[in-house]
């Protein structure tokens, strides 16, 4: 401590000089280094869960904002088509000539697939004209020079080029609107050239070539408009006149709002899972430090004997908690960051077709601060537990007088009060969710708090039963295990609480996710089973990408073994802040409304109504926002202008979170002014197998056709995978929670094994052999883990049921509750398997502790 002699800096905190605080913590660190490290590991693991989940919950939207801003630059308004076929490019000049317009930049956007030697990727073909340079967006600022560069080919973001193995001046295959093209890759564009778009999935081309590639000559889907300062209103009025009710006029960054709405139900689900995981992470950190409470209580008692007053004790405890909390939380943020980059860095394909989202990871300072705060707060709360010993009614050395190991006792009153608190929390959580399902996030968090509350009373009951067994039935190790459990009650309860939280979180989150996937899968199976074979353009996921292949329907219909070919249509339509999925099926087709999708109305009557013109099935979210019921009229802004429909039935969102509207193809063709299909449903004649039908159709279309021909089973399998991508964050959180829980348990078990060495040595000195001690350790641990599992499983199932209700009511996702015994057993098996594997080896090693240790202080 040579520095201390030189340094006179010694400010006082709560009556303690910082040099004294440093000296005391340094001594604690020296002696309890292993324990502090293990507690720190527990905190870090909890914080990593918090941080990983925060990043997962925010990255997609943050990156979308960046990508949109990078293109829009200083544009304030935009004119947007209501159909993927766009509108006449000639309108650009008329917009540019409007008073107050400084720049009008036309854009064409089409879903596309780019294919290179190493792979393929779904994205958006974006055609731009050099006019866009006038908007000064970070992604387009260099386009003036780049225009020359892109001439006659496409530019790919560096990430896309890497993934598909394309290189500058090489070739790639571009599939768009059912047509395949071989294109020249002119440039692999990095962040220096196109800013944050470098991490996106855009395929950039000059407008003319893009129109040719898309088969939409002279058409654009969007005009970005920059107005002179103070002229926005004037420009907006001019745009409205030009739109004539057939185009949308929106703020330039409107797509961000649409993306926000599109992500809202997924974000709501993610938020629920995230909130539960956050609380589990916080409580895991809290419990990790609780394991060290007995030692801290002893330290406090000894300091007080030496004359440290309450303020000084708080200063000592607080400073130690701050040091440990900050260091461990930093480690947790680093770990969480690694997890986020390895697990969460994936963009769902279905969103990439609808929005310019990127896979760019967004790590905000707020996420770092929240995660750090959680870790430090958990450490502070748990570390300050010994201040309860400062109560007036407690004697200074009370901790030394308690039964069992000093600082380990948990009284009956604490067990009972904790259980009562748990019941109160449980009732409040239930009432909250029943009254307003939107409060489920709070309810899930409350249940996480309730889980540890029941552990002390369960612990009491378990030791009572063990005591009975030891007395009446079984040998000495059960008796020893019972005595040991009671002597180390705080530690055992903390360990059981960690188990309970791990199981609670995993079962609640995993169960709700399984139900959600089950519900979506059921709908997918039912929908794509309505025909034997499906023909779609390559990139089509939501039936929103049409294709224009002349004579294709007739070609397929003429194939031997084909009974009928029916065309399905669809597109996205921006209505207010929603990007709705408009889907159309032939009148009378069974897939118009499926039983698994129906929320309100009668299935047969709904189908019959929808066979007539002017009727539509709407998803419950849209119906709720518009106040619609079966039979209600509503107006849609179609490409032909505002059009009135009536509600034939109310459905789920059919897997597209912003909402879905189903029409018959007659209405769709009329109002969207196109007969281009998005999907062809093919029925086979009796005796023709789906596989044979697929082969025959592929032969008829030719080997180079970009259209995909799939049996219903193949289509279902593919769509299920894509459907699950939308829930991938939920899956990531669920898996992360399970992994983290197992790690937290491993850290906690290691801590407890380390703490037990002295007691094991004492038993060894009294004549117990290694195997007996090992058996005792295993019995104790099994009891503690079982208490946690029982508590966690019951609350987890309850949380799972409440979460399902929330998902159904608040997000319109289909999520029918099922107990899922396999899921529960699997969760228990994974957590227990890892725990016991962790326990068995070091437990055996700890049982080999030399008896001499019991003679050392």
């Amino acid at each position, binding site marked *: 401590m040579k520095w201390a002699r030189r340094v006179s800096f010694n400010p006082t905190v709560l*009556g303690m000089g910082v040099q*004294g605080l440093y000296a005391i913590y*340094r*001594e*604690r660190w020296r002696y309890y280094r292993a324990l502090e490290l293990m507690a720190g590991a527990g905190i870090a693991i909890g914080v990593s869960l918090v941080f990983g989940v925060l990043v997962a919950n925010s990255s997609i939207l943050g990156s979308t904002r960046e990508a949109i801003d990078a293109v829009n630059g200083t544009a304030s308004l935009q004119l947007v088509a209501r159909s993927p076929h766009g509108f006449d490019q000639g309108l650009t000049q008329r917009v540019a000539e409007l008073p107050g317009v400084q720049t009008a930049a036309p854009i064409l956007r089409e879903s596309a697939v780019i294919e290179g030697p190493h792979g393929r990727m779904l994205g958006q073909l974006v055609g731009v004209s050099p006019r866009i340079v006038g908007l000064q967006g970070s992604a387009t600022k260099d386009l003036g020079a780049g225009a020359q560069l892109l001439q006659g080919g496409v530019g790919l973001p560096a990430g896309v080029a890497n993934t598909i193995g394309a290189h500058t001046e090489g070739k790639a295959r571009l599939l768009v609107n059912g047509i395949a093209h071989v294109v020249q890759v002119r440039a692999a564009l990095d962040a220096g050239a196109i800013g944050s778009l470098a991490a996106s999935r855009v395929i950039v081309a000059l407008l003319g070539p893009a129109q040719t590639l898309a088969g939409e000559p002279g058409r654009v889907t969007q005009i970005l408009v920059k107005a002179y300062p103070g002229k926005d209103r004037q420009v907006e009025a001019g745009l409205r006149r030009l739109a004539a009710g057939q185009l949308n006029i929106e703020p330039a960054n409107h797509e961000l709002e649409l993306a926000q709405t599109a992500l809202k139900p997924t974000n709501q689900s993610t938020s629920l899972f995230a909130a539960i995981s956050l609380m589990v992470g916080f409580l895991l950190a809290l419990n990790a430090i609780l394991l060290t409470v007995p030692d801290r209580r002893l330290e406090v008692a000894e300091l007080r*004997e030496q*004359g440290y*007053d309450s303020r000084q004790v708080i200063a000592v405890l607080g400073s130690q908690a701050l040091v440990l909390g900050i260091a461990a939380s930093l480690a947790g943020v680093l770990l969480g960051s690694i997890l986020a980059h390895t697990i969460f860095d994936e963009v769902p394909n279905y969103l990439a077709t609808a929005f310019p989202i990127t896979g760019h990871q967004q790590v905000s300072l707020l996420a770092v601060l929240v995660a750090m705060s959680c870790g430090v707060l958990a450490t502070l709360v748990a570390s300050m537990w010994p201040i309860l010993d400062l109560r007036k009614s407690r004697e200074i050395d009370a901790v030394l007088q308690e039964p069992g190991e000093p600082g380990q006792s948990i009284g009956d009153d604490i067990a009972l009060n904790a259980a009562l608190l748990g019941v109160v929390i449980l009732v409040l959580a239930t009432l909250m969710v029943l009254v307003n399902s939107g409060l489920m996030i709070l309810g899930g968090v409350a249940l996480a708090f309730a889980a540890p509350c029941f552990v002390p009373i369960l612990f009491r009951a378990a030791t009572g039963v063990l005591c009975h067994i030891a007395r009446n039935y079984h040998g000495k190790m059960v008796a020893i295990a019972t005595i040991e459990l009671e002597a180390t009650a705080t530690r055992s309860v903390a360990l059981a609480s960690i188990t309970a939280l791990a199981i609670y979180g995993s079962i609640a989150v995993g169960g709700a996710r399984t139900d959600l996937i089950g519900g979506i899968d059921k709908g997918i199976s039912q929908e794509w089973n309505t025909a034997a074979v499906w023909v779609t353009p390559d990139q089509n996921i939501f039936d929103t990408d049409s294709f224009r292949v002349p004579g294709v329907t007739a070609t397929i219909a003429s194939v031997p073994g084909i009974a009928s070919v029916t065309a399905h249509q669809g597109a996205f339509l921006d209505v207010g802040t929603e990007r709705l999925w408009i889907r159309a099926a032939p009148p009378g087709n069974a897939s118009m409304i499926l039983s698994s999708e129906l929320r309100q109305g009668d299935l047969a009557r709904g189908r019959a109504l929808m066979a007539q013109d002017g009727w539509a099935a709407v998803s419950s979210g849209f119906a709720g926002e518009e106040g619609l019921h079966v039979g209600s009229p509503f107006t849609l802004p179609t490409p032909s202008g505002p059009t009135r429909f009536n509600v034939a039935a109310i459905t789920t969102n059919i897997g597209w979170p912003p909402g879905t509207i189903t029409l018959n193809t007659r209405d769709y063709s009329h109002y969207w002014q196109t007969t281009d299909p998005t999907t062809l449903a093919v029925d086979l004649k009796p005796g023709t197998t789906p596989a044979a039908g697929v082969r025959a159709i592929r032969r008829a279309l030719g080997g180079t056709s970009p259209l995909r021909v799939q049996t219903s089973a193949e289509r279902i399998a593919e769509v299920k995978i894509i459907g699950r991508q939308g829930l991938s964050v939920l899956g990531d959180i669920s898996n992360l929670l399970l992994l983290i829980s197992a790690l937290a348990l491993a850290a906690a078990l290691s801590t407890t094994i380390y703490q037990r060495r002295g007691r094991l040595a004492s038993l060894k000195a009294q004549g117990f052999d290694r195997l007996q001690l090992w058996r005792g350790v295993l019995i104790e641990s099994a009891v503690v883990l079982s208490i946690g599992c029982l508590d966690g499983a019951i609350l987890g199932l309850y949380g799972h049921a409440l979460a399902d209700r929330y998902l159904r009511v608040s997000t319109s996702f289909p999520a029918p509750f099922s107990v899922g015994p396999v899921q529960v057993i699997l969760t228990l098996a994974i957590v227990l398997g890892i725990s016991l594997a962790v326990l068995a080896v070091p437990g055996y090693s700890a049982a080999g502790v030399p008896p001499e240790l019991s003679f050392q202080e």
Partner: protein
Amino acid sequence: MSTLELGEVVKRYEGGGETVNAVDGVSLSVAPGEFVALYGPSGSGKTTLLMMAATIKRPDAGSITFGGRELASLTKRESARFRRETVGIVFQSFHLMQGASALDNASLKLFALNMRLGEAHDMARPWLERLGLGHRLNHKPSEMSMGERQRVSIARALANKPRLLLADEPTGNLDSRRSREVLGLLSEICAEENIPAVLVTHDPQATAFVTRVHTLRDGTLSDGLDLDLHTSMPG
């Protein structure tokens, strides 16, 4: 200089449905420079009496004063201040910080007095040197013998220049030679510093180093060494 006065002090413990009078109406006065031994078997209440004098425990009845100041009525903060500024306590089981060096352990109480580390070490080091630990300043408790640990604990008790010294079985873990050394040292310091000191012991040989002996049995105090009790005690 102050005198420690105990008047009709009572301390009860409740447990198993019974009330035990650990200390039952004890009166005692220890003047500056006096080194008083409380002799008694285990469970006789002598440690409880010492803890009350140190304000670690509160009496259920009676009064304890030091320099005329009533200790039983001190608030928790006042009693903490009393311990860190006025009292030096030597514990039988040392209560040392296991990760700390001898020097840091001896300085522990001084940290609570907001001393800088250098100052605290400067105050504690002479005591360790006087106790024969000058060559062990940087050793940790686990690297020291029981006797050395006890001497560190004594150095810690003395480092703040206490005006009252309380020792609970300070020789309980020492061999007879070390015991004599420690008791001689405590006696010497008590006389040198002219402070009252109380020694709790069940070792009759310790009585040779003190100015006065009282015997405590079943919570009641009697003057002198009870030899009947001595012969009936094991060891």
